[in-house]
């Protein structure tokens, strides 16, 4: 292994902590706890310097947005502003307990309320909950709201419709909420097939889940027809907000007649991905669904902010407290810094950057859909596959050039898919560098295919045996 495990630094008796003296009487814990006493916990015994060296070494084996381009489709890996980190570390804003009296927390509650107002404005939704701690969490919350809504109306509806291009969390969330999932195929232009939709819509449909633009980066031009069709069937329409970076200042889900939606603060609103979280997935709803939102809901009463627990129709709670507050602080700071006009510029440049990459890459890589696209686009590595090299291998070869690969093999509607989303924070040099690298790789595929097939060569570890990892799992030391 490149860097040994922290426990391999262990030396019996070595310590890395300091606590003040006990000051009170030290009883005999073993006696006091009787059948509950433990003395056999094994944990590393290391010094502070050991810890610092080890985790510093680990960080050096990682690649973040600060390292270079991260063109993962639908992930919106934009720059994470450092001033937001400063805000999120102000002690007066963070050293607070969730059950302190509200009168002591008006500063924080006001920040959260402002965030709600801004999200509502951006989306044209009426009411917002900040409780869900991730996008998928927001999806689940929304589907439970849909469920409660129909239960309240004494309508039994068991199906949720999801396009075949949808992100996996959509059908998974639907299942968690107890719905059956009905998948509909996209049409030849990569959009929702209206006929297919009409065929599955019936009295049993609870909701249609959509993202717009979709995972191909294509805007559903028939969106108002779609939402109308779903509403005519008595069902609701849900908006997956993962792709909001494509429409801020241009289109609003509320105006597309979506009934409810989730936001990803860790995508559109620049909060860091953290290697897999924490994120935050607020949910926005139209007024008629507000009664079902999780409790408590943040409200304002003249000049005072408070948590409203008097919500008899609420679905309950999805998080033990109020959601990922620390992430919300960063999103608040982002919106304050960028401003209204700035958000529109953000969208414009996200779309500009993506279209620029598309224009420069479509000669060498197949573009399966000729439609215009917004902040992301999907290429197919099918030509290269015919030459003997797969999209996976292309992705791994990119790593040799110190760039992160796009999302691969998603969406499922495209063979050998490469889903590319540069975001607005990349400058023309990094975009050109990415294009040049892709062109170099497509030449390598013709001239020296083995080089690409056996990539990566220069990373800390080379291609890892995932089969062995799954067949013989080694999941802890």
């Amino acid at each position, binding site marked *: 292994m490149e860097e040994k495990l922290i426990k391999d630094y262990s030396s019996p008796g070595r310590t890395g902590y300091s606590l003040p003296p006990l000051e009170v009487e030290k009883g005999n814990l073993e006696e006091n706890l009787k059948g509950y006493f433990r003395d056999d916990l094994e944990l590393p015994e290391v010094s502070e310097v050991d810890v610092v060296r080890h985790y510093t070494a680990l960080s050096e084996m990682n690649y973040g947005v600060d390292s270079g381009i991260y063109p993962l489709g639908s992930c919106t890996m934009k720059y994470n502003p450092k001033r937001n980190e400063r805000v999120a570390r102000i002690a007066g804003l963070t050293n607070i307990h969730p059950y302190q009296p509200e009168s002591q927390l008006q500063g924080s509650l006001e920040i959260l309320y402002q965030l709600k107002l801004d999200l509502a404005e951006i989306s044209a939704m009426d009411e917002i909950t900040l409780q869900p701690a991730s996008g998928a969490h927001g999806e689940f919350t929304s589907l439970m709201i849909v469920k409660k809504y129909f239960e309240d109306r004494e309508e039994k509806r068991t199906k949720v419709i999801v396009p075949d291009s949808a992100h996996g969390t959509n059908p998974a969330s639907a299942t968690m909420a107890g719905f059956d999932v009905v998948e509909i195929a996209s049409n030849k232009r990569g959009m929702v097939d209206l006929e297919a939709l009409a065929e599955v819509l019936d009295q049993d449909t609870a909701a249609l889940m959509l993202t717009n633009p979709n995972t191909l980066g294509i805007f559903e031009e028939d969106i108002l027809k779609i939402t109308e069709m779903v509403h005519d069937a008595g069902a609701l329409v849900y908006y997956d907000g993962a792709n909001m970076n494509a429409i801020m200042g241009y289109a609003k889900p509320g105006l597309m007649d979506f009934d409810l939606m989730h936001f990803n603060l860790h995508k559109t609103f620049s909060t860091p991905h953290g290697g897999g979280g*924490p994120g935050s997935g607020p949910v926005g709803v139209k007024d008629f669904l507000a009664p079902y939102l999780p409790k408590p809901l943040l409200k304002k009463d003249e000049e005072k902010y408070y948590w409203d627990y008097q919500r008899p129709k609420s679905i309950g709670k999805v998080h033990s407290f109020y959601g990922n507050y620390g992430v919300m602080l960063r999103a608040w700071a982002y919106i304050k810094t960028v401003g209204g006009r700035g958000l529109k510029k953000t969208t414009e440049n996200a779309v500009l950057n993506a279209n620029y990459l598309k224009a420069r890459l479509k000669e060498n890589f197949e573009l399966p859909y000729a439609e215009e696209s917004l902040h992301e686009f999907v290429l197919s590595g099918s030509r290269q596959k015919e030459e003997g090299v797969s999209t996976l291998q292309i992705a791994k070869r990119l790593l040799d050039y110190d760039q992160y690969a796009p999302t691969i093999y998603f969406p499922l509607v495209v063979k050998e898919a490469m889903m590319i989303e540069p975001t607005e924070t990349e400058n023309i040099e990094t975009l050109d560098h990415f294009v040049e690298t892709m062109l170099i790789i497509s030449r390598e595929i013709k001239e020296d295919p083995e080089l690409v097939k056996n990539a990566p060569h220069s990373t800390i570890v080379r291609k890892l045996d995932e089969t062995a990892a799954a067949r013989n799992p080694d999941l802890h030391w």
Partner: protein
Amino acid sequence: MDYISNTAAEKNKMLKEIGVEAVEDLFQMIPEAVTAADDLNIKPGISELELMRTAQLQAKKNKSLDEQLSFLGAGAYDHYVPGIIDALISRSEFYTAYTPYQAELSQGTLEAIYEYQSMICDLTGMGIANASMLDGGSAAAEAVTMAARISRNSKVLLPDTVNPAYREVIKTYGAGQDLEFIDLESTQTALDPAQIEANIDDQTAVVVLQYPNFYGSLEKMEEISKIIKKSKKTLMLVIANPILLGVLKAPADFGADIVVGEAQNLGSGLNYGGPNLGFMACRDERKMLRQLPGRIVGKTTDVEGKEGFVLTLQTREQHIRREKATSNICTNEALNALMATIYLSTMGREGLKEVGEHCYHKAHYLAEKIDNLSAFEVSNRNNFFNEFVLKTEKDNRKLIEELLAAEIIVGYNLEAVGKEGILVSVTEKRTKAEMDKLVEKMEVL
């Protein structure tokens, strides 16, 4: 500040390459009807100086725990956070990284998660742990639905000695799976095992226990475990406080099938309740492993035989299994898991042990002094770890208010959840002087 580097000239170059005149041309396909007539009603962007000023102003409208003495617990705990944690997780290769799908560029994150999984196994005594859940409450909820899937049953025994907020989350998730909840009401601060015995049958999916429980008391874990084991299909779910597992027996030793909990106290700080850190661990058995939600990191070798780490067993997850996935979880709490890993490495076995001892002895010191005051009593005097129930004949709210005026938050008013008393939490951060101060103030009231 809009974080866009390209100049007008550079943008024009790009527009030319694409073949359009202006950037607005790229949005032609969006129908007018879905576009607002006015610009976004959000103030123009401000500079960093203004941002910090604004943020500090907001902070001044708060009264943080830097400015007063707090004994609040009830699921979020004020523990010592070593400074080394922030220094390390602030390295941008950690916090600006994505989920480690491209393993070769993410060995740092992956190895750290492997260490985290290992330490959670060490703490809980269980065989397998995942890479984290969103928080303790949702972890408990997903453990309950997991138990329902494994046992193919739908009844859940849910005592009221489990954190009420967790019970709400569990029930919300349970409603998605049509689970049936049997609420067990305890008359004391700890359960009577007979209640479990009376309500368990072969249709019970899982019994949920908290350790220590919401009131700080220890349930009769051995006895309850025996009762549960008699019902072959029923699982035992333990919600454990991880920071106390340096001195408290591992839940695995009581026969737990799944262990979850809130690991915010392992180095994340309070942050008004989020981001938190759910952890989840289960027995090392194929049928449990396949039902476990969340990401899992495994160790393997590369083509040259070098050891490395990958995300594994991904076929349980949403991006492959979609509607048949064990859970929808995608983004979890990876950075907080890293904080916990650094915390546990820093404290080590001795440090965690000492934290547990401080918590226990200090809490008992305070409880004894309070119990000796005539107007107050500690109702679970004989069975608590570091959280206890303070009872008084006075009005709870009034007592809390009067102490607040003396800059002390005495605890969590249990009337908010329909119970009597005030829940008082004592951690290693509390000093003798602070505790004496509380007692002094209480004496006068």
